[in-house]
């Protein structure tokens, strides 16, 4: 037996064509994607791809996404991989479906294949008299087979829907208030649940007066299982009140954290680590030309996802069947984890994706799904909606990890970098639920750890460099240095719960690389843009660097007037995905703020150019917010970031107008745009601050206090 053909992207693991598309009696086509809408517009992009390859109007497309009954398993919607993995699969599946339909039509119409054309799903000969629509053909039978990927998708030159600024399919509902989010979903007989989390990670419940809560108006059930407490009420406000009462009715014994927010970086560097050489290039002769050496240390704090809408899920438990509605990024992976915790076969757990509030990585979506199941079990058959309160979200979501980076580089007498060393310290950047079997029972879900019979924490993980890396993502500098050595030091102990947040390690690594490049440019007496170009060979990188500089009106050697500054930074996400270069103009009065951000972006083929610009704009603003304002606060006792006052984010008066210039390359592979700004923006701001005031801040966030301390 020959090995099965290698199929592109997610087709490889979901090989049947009718897993991807079906034709409906009403003249529509249902497209099934395992990639889900998390605020990035990917479902619209998938619809564009399908309509394009099938030659049907976009209005005929019905999208179904992220469902363990209906859609392919495409893993998580994460890592800017959706268009790469899911889009390529969709493209090949639809191209092959179209071809099979055409073949059948050719037989029936007795017209050779090359004399047939398709217009909006109608296959016709050149005479336009003999014709058959897709829906008149035995489509179900034709799609009942494995894909071969033998049919080449359309070349970019023939695209009319892909590459266009198609309006997002979900936005009309969102501007009219139509129920669209999992938070808006209401099932018959639905009850409202809330959870009472411990005051700190490892706190043990020593006493709990459940009866004091049970007797409150509307309370239907109170669940206590080990350190897990939750309750269910008829009305939402009753559940919220009961939660407050339950908090008062619970006594806990707490265990201190090993450090606090001010000590975390020294802590990370002082721990046992697992070390890995990420990149090494040596040229002893070039190294010997070193004339001047610079060293620096950069840090990034824990950063919160801080979605506007707290995590939410609905669950219904009927006998041996569990059904869940969730905004998880990976419905199959969540199912696998839940089935393990509940000791059920995965097939008895049905998980449907419903949109949630903006998702920037592994947030509380998966956790709250287990909360909802545990509470729904207590009210047999009735669906329960659980939404976290704001403090549940801030205190319990897995943060983007704190990181430390030490850099050392040498310049030769001509100002060229001849040696570069880069060491980084971090926890691993993922603890997501996965479908991978482990020797013992583990879970990624908070409530599982708190049960009377607790399930062990899934050990910290870190995506391998082959997939773009986690903590070491973007740690090899893309510049042409004759010597470069990058070492990742993974810290085994994990003081705070962490997982994947937009950009993963790229945020801190690019912040360090691109800040340090500026320090070296200054030492070499060179203009920052010119200094980068000198050591950059990749033509696409050069193109975004030059375009951003040009659009921002960058003038080499321009001096600051002392009230403002400008800074530059660049990266190619994962050193193989989208390119972004950005110029930040910084103002200093009344407080440090970004006045203008001008970026150039190349993500290869743009499926939806406006969608890409939207993602890049959003990424830039979010990264400005991280850079100027954000830091998860914690004492030795517990997390103290609990609300928008203890975790302020960028507000409208503080937000600049952002300009994004797109270089569309229709013949290049399409790459994701969601995370390309995470690295360059913090560095460009630090560089602008240096330009304005001559101080170099190497610790995020770049606050007024830190600037004042540096100036003193």
């Amino acid at each position, binding site marked *: 037996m020959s090995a099965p053909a290698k199929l592109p992207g997610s087709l490889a693991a979901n090989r049947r064509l009718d897993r991807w598309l079906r034709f409906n009696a009403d003249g529509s086509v249902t497209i099934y994607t395992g990639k889900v809408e998390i605020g990035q517009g990917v479902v619209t992009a998938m619809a564009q791809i399908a309509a394009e390859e099938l030659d049907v109007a976009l209005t005929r497309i019905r999208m179904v996404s992220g469902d363990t009954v209906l859609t392919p398993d495409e893993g998580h919607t994460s890592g800017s991989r959706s268009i790469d993995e899911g889009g390529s699969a969709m493209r090949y599946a639809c191209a092959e479906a179209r071809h099979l339909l055409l073949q059948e039509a050719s037989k029936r119409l007795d017209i050779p294949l090359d004399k047939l054309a398709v217009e909006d799903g109608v296959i016709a000969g050149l005479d336009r008299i003999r014709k058959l629509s897709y829906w008149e053909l035995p489509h179900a039978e034709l799609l009942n087979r494995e894909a071969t990927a033998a049919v080449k998708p359309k070349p970019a030159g023939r695209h009319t829907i892909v590459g266009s600024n198609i309006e997002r399919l979900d936005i009309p509902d969102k501007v009219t208030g139509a129920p669209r989010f999992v938070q808006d979903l209401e099932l018959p007989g639905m009850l409202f649940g809330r959870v009472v989390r411990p005051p700190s990670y490892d706190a043990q419940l020593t006493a709990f007066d459940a009866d004091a809560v049970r007797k409150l108006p509307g309370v239907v059930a109170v669940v206590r299982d080990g350190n897990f407490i939750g309750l269910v009420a008829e009305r939402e406000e009753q559940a919220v009140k009961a939660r407050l009462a339950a908090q008062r009715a619970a006594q806990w014994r707490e265990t201190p954290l090993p450090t606090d927010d001010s000590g975390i970086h020294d802590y990370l560097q002082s721990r046992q680590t697992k070390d890995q050489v990420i990149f090494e290039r040596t040229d002893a002769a070039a190294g010997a030309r070193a004339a001047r050496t610079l060293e620096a240390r950069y840090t990034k704090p824990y950063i919160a996802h801080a979605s506007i809408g707290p995590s939410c899920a609905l669950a219904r438990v009927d006998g041996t069947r569990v059904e869940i509605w969730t905004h998880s990024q990976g419905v199959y992976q969540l199912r696998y984890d839940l089935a393990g915790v509940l000791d059920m076969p995965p097939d008895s757990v049905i998980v449907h994706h419903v949109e949630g509030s*903006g998702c920037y990585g592994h947030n509380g979506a998966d956790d709250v799904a287990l909360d909802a199941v545990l509470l729904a079990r207590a009210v047999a058959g009735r669906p329960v909606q659980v939404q976290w309160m704001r403090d549940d979200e801030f205190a319990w979501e897995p943060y983007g990890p704190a990181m430390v980076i030490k850099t050392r580089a040498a310049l030769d007498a001509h100002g060229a970098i001849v040696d570069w060393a880069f060491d980084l310290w971090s926890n691993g950047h993922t603890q997501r639920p996965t479908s991978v079997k482990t020797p013992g029972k583990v879970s990624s879900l908070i409530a599982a750890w708190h049960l009377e019979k607790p399930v062990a924490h899934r050990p910290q993980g870190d995506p391998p460099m082959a997939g773009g890396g986690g903590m070491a993502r973007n740690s090899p500098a893309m510049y042409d240095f004759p010597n470069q050595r990058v070492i990742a030091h993974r810290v085994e102990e994990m003081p705070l719960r962490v997982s994947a947040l937009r950009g993963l390690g790229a945020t801190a690594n690019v912040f360090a690389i691109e800040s340090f490049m500026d320090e070296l440019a200054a030492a070499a007496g060179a203009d920052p843009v010119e200094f980068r170009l000198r050591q950059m060979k990749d033509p696409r990188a050069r193109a975004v660097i030059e375009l951003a500089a040009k659009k921002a009106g960058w003038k080499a050697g321009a001096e600051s007037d002392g009230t403002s500054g400008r800074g530059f930074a660049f990266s190619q996400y994962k050193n193989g995905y989208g390119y972004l270069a950005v110029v930040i103009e910084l103002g200093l009065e009344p407080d440090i703020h970004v006045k203008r951000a001008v970026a150039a972006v190349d993500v290869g083929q743009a499926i939806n150019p406006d969608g890409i610009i939207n993602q890049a704009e959003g990424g830039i603003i979010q990264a400005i917010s991280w850079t100027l304002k954000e830091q998860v606060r914690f004492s030795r006792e517990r997390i103290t970031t609990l609300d928008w006052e203890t975790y302020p984010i960028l*507000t409208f008066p503080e937000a600049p107008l*952002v300009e994004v210039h797109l270089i569309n390359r229709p013949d290049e592979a399409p790459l994701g745009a969601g995370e390309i700004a995470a690295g360059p923006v913090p560095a460009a701001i630090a560089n602008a601050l240096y330009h304005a005031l001559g101080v170099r801040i190497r610790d995020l966030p770049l606050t007024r206090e830190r600037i004042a301390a540096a100036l003193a």
Partner: protein
Amino acid sequence: MADSITLKVNGVQHTVRAEPDTPLLYILRNDLKLKGAKFGCGQGLCGSCTVLIDGLNMMACDTPLWAAAGKAITTIEGLGTLAASHALQRAFIAEQAAQCGYCISGMIMTSAALLARNPDPGIADIKQALARNLCRCGTHTRIIRAVQRAARELRVRP
């Protein structure tokens, strides 16, 4: 003790039975099934639950039911529908001014109150008006453009 309280929402009188201190947001979402206003923080700090009360933008998560009784409440559903949309709703679509969209209903309601008192706001006015509405996805640039677009349309065809 649950009371019967009468509310006027989107021009229609409703009588609901709930505790008088119930946040208006839950009444709108769960009793009246108007899901447009969202729960974000429950503390009046993020703006995702913004509705108009007697024309003023207010946060429904920290407005108790008793305080809303007898007043004219407008939610995004009352501002316009897809078939008969408000200029702001059209402008937010035209500018594709949403990413996840969770904050957008609040953004539009706050902007509606702004345009009612200032038909020709500058960028600084719009930023100031939206200062208490948080957007985490970073859609600020587009939201500002959408409000400007709606203002232009309303000045031509009020």
